[in-house]
């Protein structure tokens, strides 16, 4: 029947749209995860105790760096 045909067509389109959206989201998530895993954050935390131990053992330097400034009170 003509009515049934139209209904089936609509279903097919929404199914394809759903797959397209899912694929898009999957690609977007993969892209973000890959980007984040390759670029390290500026504010990565260090294990201060461990680092200080290594400094005391002479395995790391611990010398005060140059070219930095104190940030004003926020």
């Amino acid at each position, binding site marked *: 029947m003509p009515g049934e045909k139209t209904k089936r067509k609509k279903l097919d389109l929404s199914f394809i749209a759903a797959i397209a959206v899912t694929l898009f989201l999957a690609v977007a998530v993969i892209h973000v995860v890959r980007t984040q895993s390759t670029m*390290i954050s500026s504010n990565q935390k260090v294990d201060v105790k461990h680092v200080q131990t290594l400094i005391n053992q002479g395995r790391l330097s611990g010398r005060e760096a140059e070219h930095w400034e104190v*940030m004003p009170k926020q």
Partner: protein
Amino acid sequence: MGGNAETVTGWVKCTLCPKECELGPGDRGNCRARVNIDGKLLTLVYGKPCAVHIDPIEKKPMFHFLPGTSIFSIATAGCNLHCKFCQNWDISQKDPEDTENGDLPPDKVVQAARYSVCNSIAYTYSEPMIFFEYTRDASSIARQAGLKNILVTAGYISEKPLRELCKVTDGANLDIKAFSDDYYRNVCDGDLATVLKTFEVMKEEGVFLEITNLIVPTLNDDPGMIRDLCRWLVKNGGPDVPLHFSRFFPMYLMRNLYPTPQKTLETAKDIAKEEGLHFVYVGNVPGVDEDTNCPNCGAVLISRVGYSVTANKLVDGHCPDCNAVIAGVWK
């Protein structure tokens, strides 16, 4: 210079490179080598190299700088770029806590270089700009001892520390990774303008420059982009700046691409010659012609096989046939 005022918040801003990391107590900078501990910015790598080698200077590559000599080469962990194709990622993308580090303060670097009969020192492999203080101090002592200093660098540094470093630097191989800001941002986590500025400052400060461009298939092998790079170099550095097109091999996070075809490198060399560059080399390809020819008469001046110099006919930096001056540091 260092922050001398009392820290109120415990937060500091590193101004060594354009990333200007803002770090709270216990934070590590993007380069991995600089950390905020108790409101002070510390470098973890001063005098703590994770790589020490003696290399032929041609390996840097520097073809117009004391050819045929050995160069004492050092590196520490860390880098402020994060190139997905990095060939030295096992030290450049590691925290200094995770590498095996030696204890070699600046004066000992110079002693070791002299003991090894090297008349120059390279700050190389990872990124000398992020071990800035170590590089500068070793370079300063090396200068006093009559040794020359070479930076092998991506040039991602702020102008003030760069100018300071240039005062004790004799030569540099500056890596211009692509003539594209998008490439720098997407593949390397940097930006093109800073690197071009570094070129200009180094030239202004009298550092002898050679350029490397690693050609990665499908990413920066567009002939138009290569032509733009060469034009910029001729305009800003003159035709005598040596340019090395280097072959990419799958590495680190880019193991999905194939090595650069030799044809691509040869096309790049042809483009550079068309744009007027006098000294263009193709690297990382065994058996390819890497000789230096006189740009005036075409005579072969320096013959090379791999990293070895098999003949050097220069006479006091001049072509023996036509007496043309050849750009470089020859003694």
